[in-house]
């Protein structure tokens, strides 16, 4: 503050002669100068072209990824269907029609010998290999048809049922010769059609590719992300606020800062080991549960939020803090009325990055047992569940042809989830963004 501003008066050196010109006047129009200008323009052009090339290259990669995924994955959302005539009168179906009118129709039909009835009908209609053309999912379709109209049990009905994996793949152009021939026969009979595979969006993992769905993994991801967000966002924001606004600057806070920065760079599988050691072995939480997955991913996401949060809080102009303190706002009021609202867009940006990374994370979740085969969607955070990236990993490992398109379809669902999550965050960020 006390600069040694000496008492030097203005307008010193009276009477000093003007300095003599040493160099000749600059030749602004000369050849050398023109070349210099040309070089400068060339450098500008080069720089612009390089930037443009970088942008185009990344756009190209992205477009390639999207086209491949959508090309392969779109088929995962459709299925091949067969119109199967079933003569209920002649098939020995074991069911009491009186039960079908009550609320327990599903249960009653589940006890009936529908699979055998379907197999028999398929063999009658399409020859001795008929049963192998029908997916195990057919009984759901038949059950629905019976419940919708129990009267069909007294006669013959044609029900559209999903085809088996072999027929489905062959109809989409990649099957074996035998299946190709079967498809040709079915096509001639006019029994083949293509429909929307709603089952893929409502079912969970299974052994047959015509049976599997993504809903279980999607719900698992939703629950896991909810746990991650609920833990990492408040903890991260409060840690950032404390470190920026309250913590004294000393060796300990430096140490904490370095630790947090390093934590953000730790490979994710190590967080998985940490989760395994602490949440499963020490705290005995259930294996494979979204709660444990969410807690493990929260450990990983928190440092990202702390770092982004601290930067955002630092970027709030000090004049706003002064203004609030100057009219008698307490430190807590300064933080919650002024600093936090202004820092929120930046904090949300960090949260987007952290959550996006957590959503796509597989390795730490494998460590805590989330690679289990889970055939029903979780009902809560304590139920065993799968998550989207792990489900993709598991399906990509399957040998069946039918699983290839399911893998791509699951990737599309994962990307759609990611885009939705980010859109919400970006919407919120823009809503809170203010100018000062």
């Amino acid at each position: 503050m006390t600069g040694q501003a000496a008492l030097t008066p203005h307008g010193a050196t009276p009477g000093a002669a003007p300095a003599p010109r040493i160099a000749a006047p600059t030749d602004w129009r000369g050849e050398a100068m023109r070349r210099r200008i040309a070089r400068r323009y060339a450098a500008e052009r080069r720089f612009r072209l390089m930037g443009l090339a970088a942008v185009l290259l990344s756009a190209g990669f992205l477009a390639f990824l999207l086209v491949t995924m959508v090309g392969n994955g779109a088929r995962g959302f459709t299925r091949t269907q067969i119109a199967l005539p079933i003569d209920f009168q002649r098939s020995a179906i074991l069911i009491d029609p009186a039960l079908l009118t009550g609320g327990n129709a599903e249960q009653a039909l589940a006890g009936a010998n529908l699979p055998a009835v379907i197999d028999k009908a398929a063999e009658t209609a399409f020859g001795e290999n008929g049963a192998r053309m029908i997916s195990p999912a057919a009984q759901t379709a038949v059950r629905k048809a019976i419940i919708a109209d129990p009267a069909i049990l007294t006669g013959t009905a044609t029900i559209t049922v999903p085809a088996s994996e072999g027929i489905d793949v062959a109809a989409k152009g990649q099957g074996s010769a035998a299946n190709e021939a079967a498809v040709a026969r079915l096509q001639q009979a006019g029994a083949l059609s293509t429909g929307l595979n709603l089952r893929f969006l409502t079912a969970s993992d299974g052994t047959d590719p015509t049976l599997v769905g993504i809903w279980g993994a999607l719900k698992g991801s939703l629950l896991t992300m909810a746990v991650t967000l609920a833990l990492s966002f408040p903890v991260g924001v409060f840690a950032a606020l404390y470190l920026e606004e309250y913590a004294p600057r000393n060796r300990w806070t430096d140490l904490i800062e370095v630790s947090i920065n390093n934590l953000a760079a730790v490979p994710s599988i190590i967080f998985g080991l940490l989760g395994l050691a602490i949440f499963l072995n020490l705290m005995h939480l259930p294996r494979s549960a979204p709660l444990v997955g969410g807690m493990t991913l929260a450990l990983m996401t928190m440092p990202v939020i702390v770092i982004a949060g601290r930067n955002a809080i630092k970027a709030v102009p000090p004049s706003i803090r002064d203004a609030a303190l100057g009219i008698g706002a307490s430190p807590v009021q300064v933080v919650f009325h002024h600093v936090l609202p202004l820092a929120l867009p930046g904090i949300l940006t960090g949260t987007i990055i952290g959550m996006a990374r957590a959503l796509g994370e597989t390795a730490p979740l494998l460590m805590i047992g989330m690679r289990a085969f889970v055939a029903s969607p979780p009902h809560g955070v304590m139920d065993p569940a799968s998550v989207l990236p792990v489900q993709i990993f598991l399906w990509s490992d399957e040998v069946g042809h039918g699983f290839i398109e399911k893998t791509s379809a699951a990737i599309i669902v994962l990307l759609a989830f990611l885009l939705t999550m980010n859109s919400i965050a970006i919407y919120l960020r823009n809503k809170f963004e203010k100018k000062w």
Partner: protein
Amino acid sequence: MADMQHIPNVKMSAQGVNVLYGEKQAIRDVSIEVDLENVTALIGPSGCGKSTFLRTLNRMNDTVSGARVEGRITLDGDDIYGADMDVVQLRARVGMVFQKPNPFPKSIYENVAYGPRIHGLAHGKADLDEIVEKSLRRAGLWDEVKDRLHESGTALSGGQQQRLCIGRAIAVEPEVILMDEPCSALDPIATARIEELILDLRGNYAIVIVTHNMQQAARVSQHTAFFHLGRLVEQGPTTEIFTNPREERTKDYITGRYG
């Protein structure tokens, strides 16, 4: 050191104040009194400590780590650095207007209403509306903004923003208003409006203004203190300081020999 002349109605008084930033002494043994009738101007070259001293009067230096204040500063006879002084309440009683206009990025209404709201000064919406209108009127801004109270305060011009900040300070009914070079970021017309405003406010509030502009000090203040290198070189009635300074350094400064 200039002699201490007695001023009636003393609102704030500083005696033997030192301010240290770590090892560095920014202010050395400053004593001054601030009263209700007169506007006090603090003048001096850059880095002379006048802003630092101003910020000790409402303890804004508390937020600077390593800053230490010695000596005694009182408000109505109570030591503001004493154990039973609540710093938050002190800052409501001793308001501050900063060098750069710093409205909150909220609406004009919210800017003014914020102080009364956090201190519980308004009872109900109608009461708050009245406080906002009264404060903006006193800050000479009401007629310009009454139709757009809910537009952002940061969309106003620089001079209007500074008057908004003055209105915001007035809204909590302070006893003292500290102004830290309030016109340094403003054009001459906006400056003239702020100066008019200071003359209007005189008598209702004890006002201390730090300024680089000696004409401004001469126009708005009745009491002037000249700081140099962290020391209070000379203080007295403004007319006396500007026409007949006792100290050579004061004379050199106000005649523009250095600054």
